[in-house]
């Protein structure tokens, strides 16, 4: 008996060492069996495991309901878990490291005397946030579920939506110390295998300390870390990820992050919102066009304004010249300076509005905007037309749906401003050319960032009716091209 205890104890100590002896491990020893009882112990981490399940489904049956003599049973762990452990996800694990890993994830390990392997019972519990509507991406008409931090729940949300048998999940562990679980999901017969291999290679190269959000992964494996443009898009909504998977993408689900990122990402995705798809096609197209127009305005309007005033005054429409000159008389700063100052002030207001508690934040933005604008006008630091241009630019930048993209575009508009101040219209032309050239040559894992296939126009500039989207977009590599037939004889 002592020997068995010792064996057990050494196992327990091993596992404790692997997990970390100073952490919240609970070791509960108990006795199994009626006549010749066996020593057993369970180990779990307090707070990660669901104690109710342990009590009810492991301890109770094993402690109270074992009415037979187990000493002669060979392969005791196999027998026990098949007969007495009333929890569905249970298996036998031979590797002590893996057993330790599973304890860290909230599972319970049963160590039986005389057993050569461990029984791992899935008792993951702990409190998580409830499934609620994602704040950042609300819709009027779509489902209001959002991903939460729990990996299993997230996987279940997706599996519920895609019941195709080809939906594959692959597990990885990332992070030296955080050892966070990463699951990639894709649909096997749509995704391009070469691309998949590339992604796999990339994941395996990650060597980082701890990963707390999926944006860390993005920053580690993206191919152009110094580029202004974001290269990966993430979403909190399962329905969004569902449609992306349908097009041949791969989704990264990280334990502890409610955002699911999808690879590869093309630029057009940053201008698509879920609302587009739940509205009717004409409305969706209209809104999309407005959004693209907003992008153009944000980048070009301040630069054109500066160019017209500073260099090419003969191009200002005659009707505006009078009022323009009247409003600009006596302004202390050059237009470039004043426009820059105004844009910066608006950036401050915007940033401030984000961080402050909501009641103050709103008041600040409104009051700040109005008062500062008015004061600046009266102090003759800016002219009213400059203020108007700055205001329009800002408002237009709010129309860009993705937050990261909006910031990128704002940065570009500053750069264009500088270029146009130096070189006038040439500056604007060079700026645009540079943007186009840069976008043309950007590739993510072999997939071009901007691609202009004719068939894809249906989803980039307008939103064609859903029943016409017969083929998958060609910008993303995939194997199975046809996704539906045109079933409406229109």
């Amino acid at each position: 008996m002592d020997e068995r205890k010792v064996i057990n104890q050494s196992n327990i100590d091993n596992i404790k060492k692997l997990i970390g002896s100073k952490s919240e491990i609970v070791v509960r020893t108990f006795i199994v069996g009626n006549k010749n009882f066996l020593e057993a112990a369970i180990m779990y981490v307090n707070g990660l495991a669901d104690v109710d399940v342990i009590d009810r489904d492991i301890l109770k049956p094993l402690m109270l309901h074992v009415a037979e003599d187990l000493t002669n049973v060979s392969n005791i762990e196999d027998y026990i878990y098949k007969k007495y452990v009333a929890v569905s996800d249970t298996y036998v694990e031979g590797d002590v490291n893996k057993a330790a890993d599973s304890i860290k994830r909230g599972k319970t390990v049963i160590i039986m005397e005389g057993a050569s392997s461990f029984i791992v019972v899935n008792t993951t519990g702990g409190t998580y946030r409830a499934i609620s509507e994602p704040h950042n991406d609300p819709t009027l008409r779509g489902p209001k579920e959002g991903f939460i931090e729990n990996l299993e729940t997230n996987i279940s949300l997706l599996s519920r939506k895609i019941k195709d048998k080809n939906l594959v999940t692959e597990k990885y562990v990332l992070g030296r110390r955080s050892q966070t679980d990463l699951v990639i999901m894709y649909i096997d017969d749509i995704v391009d295998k070469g691309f998949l291999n590339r992604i796999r290679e990339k994941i395996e190269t990650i060597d980082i300390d701890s990963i707390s959000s999926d944006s860390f992964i993005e920053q580690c494996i993206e191919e152009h870390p110094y580029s202004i443009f974001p290269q990966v898009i993430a979403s909190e909504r399962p329905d969004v990820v569902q449609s992306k998977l349908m097009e041949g993408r791969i989704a990264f689900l990280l334990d502890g992050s409610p955002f699911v990122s999808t690879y590869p990402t093309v630029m057009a995705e940053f201008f698509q919102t879920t609302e587009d798809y739940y509205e009717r096609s004409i409305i969706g197209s209209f809104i999309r066009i407005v959004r693209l127009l907003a992008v153009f305005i944000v980048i070009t309007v301040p630069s054109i304004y500066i160019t017209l005033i500073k260099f090419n005054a003969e191009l200002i429409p005659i009707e505006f010249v009078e009022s323009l000159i009247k409003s600009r008389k006596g302004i202390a700063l050059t237009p470039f300076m004043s426009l820059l100052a105004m844009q910066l002030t608006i950036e401050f207001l915007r940033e401030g509005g984000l961080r402050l508690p909501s009641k103050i934040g709103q008041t600040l933005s409104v009051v700040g905007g109005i008062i500062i604008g008015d004061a600046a006008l009266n102090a003759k630091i800016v002219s009213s037309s400059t203020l108007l241009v700055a205001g329009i630019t800002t408002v237009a930048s709010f129309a860009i749906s993705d937050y990261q993209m909006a910031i990128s575009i704002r940065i570009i508009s500053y750069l264009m401003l500088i270029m146009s101040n130096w070189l006038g219209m040439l500056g604007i032309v060079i700026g645009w050319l540079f943007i186009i050239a840069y976008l043309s040559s950007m590739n993510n894992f072999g997939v071009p960032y901007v691609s202009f296939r004719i068939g894809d126009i249906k989803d980039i500039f307008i939103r064609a009716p859903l029943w016409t989207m017969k083929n998958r977009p060609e910008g993303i590599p995939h194997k199975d091209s046809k996704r539906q037939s045109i079933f409406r004889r229109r």
Partner: protein
Amino acid sequence: MMVVVLILTFSFIGAKGQMVEELEIPIGVGFDITKASSITYNKVPIIVYSFEEGGRVASNVLMGTGLSIGETRETRQLESSRKFLLGLTRIIVYSEESARDGLRNNLDVLVNNPEINDRALCVICKGKAEDMLKYKVKGVPSSADYIYGLVKNSDQFNFMSMQYTIMDMVVRVDAEGRNVILPYVEITENGIKITGTAIFNGARMVGKADIRESRVINLLKEDKVKGILTIQKNSKEYIDCYVQSKRKVKCERKDGKYKFIINLNLKGKIVNNCLYNNLNSDVKTLKTFEEDMKKTAEKMCEEYINKIKCEYNTDVLDLGRVAVARYGRGTGTDWNSVICNSIIEVKVSFKVDTEGRGDY
């Protein structure tokens, strides 16, 4: 990356521009000539906006004098407190004298400068352009604005077309078989008025037509113009019709002599009717009216055609163009003299379009 920044910085050095509020905004440009012994002086008055306190806009005339047009810019800058910009002009006023002397130099300046607003309107004025520009008109910041409005809206009546911009002029001056006409304004005791059209041969003015003649010229020369035609029996009984014209010209040549047939298709709106009874109810009366109008129009045209043909020694009506299209370009024919010797026939067809609200 560094190289790029360097290059851009290098290019930046020396780049200059000028703020718009520090520019001289010309609204109108004039052109005068004075001849003293054998030297011709060009005087170019420019009327600019000056912005007063309280937001009022007034105007100011700056003069430049010189032997060449370029020199006038220099002398003018001596007077002006701001930088010169040619771009936002709305109207160009040529004095009659300079027009008769020839506008070719001027046109060259306009073509050469890309900053010019090609849609500025050109007019010829009686007397000096300077006086015209200095004239103060109530209710508008400057006389140039007023003249601009004048010419712009002149196409409502009098069969004037709005094709008096710089671009139109440039296109017509040297084109084979085409000629320029420009509105002629003068200062009367009631203000600035359009009193006729100036007829050009190439880039030189050769004559002025008064308003009655101008109406006919316009009707015969331009397409899709509007104006009023009247049949008048006496001072009480007449009928006015606001017509819109469509013009087609056919050309034939027999034994070296050209014959031009101008087909005018007029569609009219009855403005008032004190001549015919039962115009609305009786189809026959309508037909009679149409016939009468047709004859009146033809008679009016014929009255002036002979004068137009030869008095100015120019192909005023752009008929050479049709001949050229038919018989070949660049043959060296002097269309002006050919037109004088040719036969011009006018055929009018007239239809009533709408009849208004009622007949009193």
